[in-house]
């Protein structure tokens, strides 16, 4: 049984202990993804930390309507919340590529991404960024690049492996 179904089942049974431990696991497995998405958009640590809570709480409240893997839902939800927050603040652009790409809070994260770009190359890193950060699925990325979906997938996992095994430059 997958995690979402197991969590739903525990909630139906009102097994608080089980539900809490399953949700903790879901949180641990997906927190990195949510942070990655939120930092595409937000510049302040407090904003990111607030929206991590909001994203997971929203996921919890929407559980009855969610099926399958939690990652895509959480990523989309985090993205929407970040953009929504930025729109409320008229002085900030909702589009990260136009925003100033740094902050004191995430300087190391930005340096990490710069490193990742040099390790796998701009194009392959953009596949990682678009897939994990922007939520584009592989068919969509294949459409954008005019490549076969299988090739995009292959480049994506190869790039991740390269990052796993590569060293900092």
């Amino acid at each position: 049984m997958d995690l979402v179904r197991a969590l739903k089942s525990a909630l139906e049974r009102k097994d608080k202990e089980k539900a809490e431990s399953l949700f903790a696991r879901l949180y641990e497995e997906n927190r990195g993804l949510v942070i990655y998405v939120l930092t595409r958009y937000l510049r302040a640590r407090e904003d990111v930390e607030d929206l991590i809570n909001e994203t997971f709480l929203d996921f919890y409240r929407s559980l009855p309507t969610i099926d399958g893997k939690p990652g895509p839902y959480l990523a989309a939800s985090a993205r929407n919340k970040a953009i929504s927050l930025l729109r409320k603040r008229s002085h900030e652009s909702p589009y990260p590529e136009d925003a100033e790409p740094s902050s004191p809070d995430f300087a190391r994260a930005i340096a990490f991404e710069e490193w990742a770009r040099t390790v796998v190359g701009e194009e392959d890193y953009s596949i990682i960024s678009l897939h994990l950060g922007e939520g584009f699925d592989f068919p969509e990325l294949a459409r954008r690049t005019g490549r076969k979906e299988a090739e995009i997938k292959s480049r994506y996992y190869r790039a991740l492996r390269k990052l796993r095994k590569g060293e900092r430059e």
Partner: protein
Amino acid sequence: MKKEEREFLGKFEKSAGISHSFSELRERLEIPESPRRKGVPWRLILGVSLSLALVLAIAIPLSLPGLIDGQLTNGSSSPGEEGVPRLELWDDVETVRLANPKSVQRIYESNLSFIGDGLALSTQGPTGKTRLLSGEAIHVDSSAFREGEEGAYPIEVSSDEGSLTYEVEVIVPEVVSLETRFLKGAYYEGERPESSDFLVEKVREDGSRAAATDSEIGLSWDSLDFSQGSSDIEIFLKTNPSIRTSVSVDLLPLEEIDLAGEYAYIDDYCTFGQPAVEAFSIEEGYFEPLYTEFVCEGEMSLSIEEGKVRMKLPGYNQGGTYDPQTRTFWIDGIAGDPPFACFLRPEGTVEVDLSFVLDEGREETFLALGGYLTAGTLDYIKYLEGDCYLDEEHTLLVNEDTLFTERTRIYCHAEDQDEYDAVLEGIWVDESGSIPTVGWVFEDGGISWGLGTAMHPMSVVREGNSLLVRYGSFEVIRYDIATDRILTYQDEDLLGGTYRRIDRENEAIFTLTYGMNGRDDYVLEKGGSLPSYIIESGGTSISILQIEGYQGEAVWEDVSYSGTVGRRYLSDYWGRYGDYRDFWQIVSPRSLGLPLEGEGWSSYVFCLFEDYELVDYAPVQFDRVDEGVVQADLRFASGKEGVLFFEGGVLRYGGEERAEERYPWEGLLILGRYVSDSGEEIEVDKYAQLGEVSHREDGGETVSSSIAWLRGYDEETGEGTILYSWTSVDGREQELRECPMTREGDVLTILYEGVPYSRSLA
């Protein structure tokens, strides 16, 4: 989420420094609780496996007759020019060692002659790469060896890259016979006998016994006629062929093959080293993956195809093929990756566990093949974490001679030789971009990437003619003494980058700060100036600099300005602009099969389509920024010239502005699923794509789509031609293929790859 994704996101999260825990979230979750559970104490979960606590590591450092390591000349630090300390080069490479020490025969009974079989050298050059030298690349001098005369004798093995001497010993008793055990059980059609299939013991005249090394065992046989069911194999000592014995072995058809066992894989996708790792196990026909890249599992179904055994697993595309000629079990690669060469673990193989120190919490298990860690495994660990030891106190060093007899935990330690810090001190320049930038910075015993980033602690160790600098797990760079450059590595044989020292006499640093803490440090020749934009990656990306109070003045000393940096990527403009019939398109030339020199993954063309037809095209790259607008000069295939303007998400060309059309074929008559006589499906979608539909065993489906165009299309009837971009499985070949579309009554038919696929409009 896959392991690679988790690891990447984990590293990102770590660098983002977000402190967030489940506990603060838990308080806001309103989880319902069944009344009957109230008051029930939480169960205690024993999270510690007793078996873990009982495992005691036992490993025996093998004592061998005097192995003499490659002789080295001691180096020393001496001040270089302008007070920069420089290191003297050592004459020899740092390590020259015997590769595969287990297969080297070191003890000779008095009736045996010397044998050089199995000898190979492992050498490490200035970049840290290990090279294996054998055959004609090495010379073996055994002139000191005295057959039959008790004593120790030096054997010299030399090569162009270094030499070493090791000792062999001649002992008095003679070998009188051999005792053998056939380990493999049987040979299956296509397999050939190998010495490692046999356990051979030499029986000496005094009654003692010794295991023969693989290199001294010779095999011979008349023929391997698998129809006969068995054959005799002669086993002899190459060091004295008169000492021999014979073993009868079973010869069985491939259909009867027993693939059960535990398999190993040499992971060759590492920057340094090639560790031997667990691959998979097969027990009673069940395939269980152990290596992270293997995603398939289950009951195997086997078939014989062209003299090989093909393995399939229900519900998985990934399978495998056992090739009896090479005894290699090839596991299919995922998504076009090459297959993985796996092999049955040799007798005596045990697991060796390592807890990483620098990458805290990371655990890996390696294999000591036949009881020994390979040079490739030790290289891999050493590169990442330092030397390996049998004890936590780091006193019992593990090397290729260390025999492991059962599962063992080892420990790593990278010594910090801080006397070398001064050599690295200073700023190192990255020259890979169009404008040099500050790369590595060494200061006060720490290391950082760029001037504005946090310092990391580091350990520096001299290895031959280079310094190995570690500042985190998988975070290793090397200083090459000979060239005075810092080297980084991107892939096994690919240099990631080289960095030179800054020339403080003639260079100045232009620091641009942006946002709240963004920072770039450009290295300029004194008297030079920083441009307002920087074109990168061959014109596929551009950084636009807006610097407050700086108008391009000459820079003579380090300066710092604030401003903003905007980055744009050409890939963001990929797409069609206009309606489905007349449009502009920015696309990879490969997709259209256009003959452009130097085209590759990151090259693009700007195409003009009129009435469905491609009428002209031009390579496109960012060329400049003028009045805040990014521009590209176009030189079309027809010879015509023009300028393309990138304004936000809109393109301007020839006085006309167009926005991207996300769904170019939306609403067209031809959209939908088409089915062939055999039930296979293709799909034409609103994204202007043609795709093959495959149905998975889990009930889902996958559409593998390719970018497409129309030619001679009639929207009234749906007739015309679809052109789609065909790509070979390995992605190397790409061409435009035609699919004619016809209509009979309410039935539309597309001829795809020569097969008609139809769809009813009714």
